[in-house]
């Protein structure tokens, strides 16, 4: 068990194995996202109340889910990095942060655009919206803290502590629509209940969500691979890799 974990934690092994995995994830994302988007935006029936404006859900929900999942991933990586000092976890946390921040922004922005036709305003100080805004600021704080240190290792550990502290915000976001009486609706999707919308509407949403997770995996994996190469550029196996690639090209 421990040997298996240590093998996976070694950047070299991870780089080798992920060489085959990354194209698959990219492929999956590139199939699911366009199919889901086209289906949702062009073929799904319009909502009886919100008409075509409800189609923003196909962007809004996946980006909001990713924004939270990404933070959860960073928190898990933070524990792994702080407790077992596995550097790979720090690399994953580092590359996930900007992606999570951009997804949070996407969720807030698409929500603001959606707010105009449905609520008649860009922004309300509602619990869900405010807690998402806090999440965005937390992402910024974590990214800024990481780059404030001269040594990469210190920055990584400080960022890990802050992401663990910030994780208290996740349940607040999740339950904000249930604890407070707010303008934002409650979840329309859950693992335990049947969805509250017709099949022709939720199937494309499910495709978009799966596609978004595939994209998340693909981006994080590819950026992790790049970061491994950057950090280990003095290691022998990276040099061998580079000379190999150069040989093949000439």
């Amino acid at each position, binding site marked *: 068990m421990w040997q298996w974990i240590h093998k996976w934690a070694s950047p070299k092994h991870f780089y080798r194995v992920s060489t085959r995995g990354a194209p698959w994830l990219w492929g999956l994302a590139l199939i699911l996202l366009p199919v889901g988007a086209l289906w949702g935006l062009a073929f799904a029936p319009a909502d009886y109340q919100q008409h075509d404006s409800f189609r923003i859900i196909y962007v809004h929900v996946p980006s909001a889910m990713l924004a939270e999942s990404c933070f959860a991933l960073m928190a898990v990586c933070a524990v792994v990095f702080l407790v077992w000092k596995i550097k790979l976890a720090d690399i994953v946390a580092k590359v996930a942060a900007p992606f999570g921040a951009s997804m949070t922004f996407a969720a807030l922005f698409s929500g603001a655009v959606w707010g105009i036709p449905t609520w008649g305003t860009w922004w309300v100080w509602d619990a869900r919206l405010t807690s998402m805004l806090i999440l965005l*600021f937390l992402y910024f704080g974590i990214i800024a803290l990481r780059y404030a*240190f001269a040594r990469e290792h210190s920055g990584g550990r400080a960022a890990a*502590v802050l992401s663990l502290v910030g994780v208290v915000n996740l349940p607040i976001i999740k339950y904000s629509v249930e604890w407070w009486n707010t303008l934002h609706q409650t979840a329309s999707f859950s693992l335990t209940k049947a969805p509250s919308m017709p099949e022709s509407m939720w199937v494309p949403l499910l495709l978009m969500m799966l596609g978004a997770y595939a994209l998340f995996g693909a981006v994080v994996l590819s950026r992790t691979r790049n970061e491994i190469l950057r950090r280990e550029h003095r290691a022998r196996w990276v040099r061998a890799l580079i000379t190999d690639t150069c040989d093949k090209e000439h």
Partner: protein
Amino acid sequence: MSSEGGHSWARAFRYTFVRDLRLRIRHGSEWGSPLIFFALIVTLFPLATTPDRTVLVTFAPGILWVAALLAVLLSLDALFREDHDDGTLEQMLLSPVPAWLLVLAKMCAHWVMAGLPLALMSPVLGLMLALPSSVFWVTALSLALGSATLILIGAIGAALTVGVRRGGLLLALMILPLYIPVLIFGAGVVRLALDGVDVTPYLAILGAMFAAALALSPWASAAALRLAHSG
């Protein structure tokens, strides 16, 4: 053995607490500045918006709380900085007494010098913001409890940035998002009191936040200080 250990823990706590208090009292500017800052920020609002008392009183809870929050934020730099620079902090981390206990003692001393005075000063500033005297004690209570939570949360950030040069802005960037829940319920207490509604639910939530921060923060701050020192 264990009772002897407990005894030395209590002594270490008391020594650290008294030492920090003594150092703070001797550096007058260090505990005076946040108070003056608090008063200054509160002064800015009526001048920038309106001196109309009926309007001002609706903003008063928010103004008092935001100003107190910023004053606490600015005071946080003093929590670990000097002890870090002269090496005292390193000795504390190396000592056989657990680091969280000493960190907690430092936080308590900080609250006495930078949190409690804000609460005690709030009636005077409330008077300037046309706050009725009936809500003075609730305001002071919410600030006393809230500032303790703010110091506990902020200590984690101060510990993380202790090794960073010019970490002030970075500290604000990290800590302000975490301050938002405390601000909402802290200012909420005063607003409820203004409306003449029962304030205990909001005070209870504020107390719950304090309890959670008290349980987690000394430990997290000590861990962050260790990280800052081990390189």
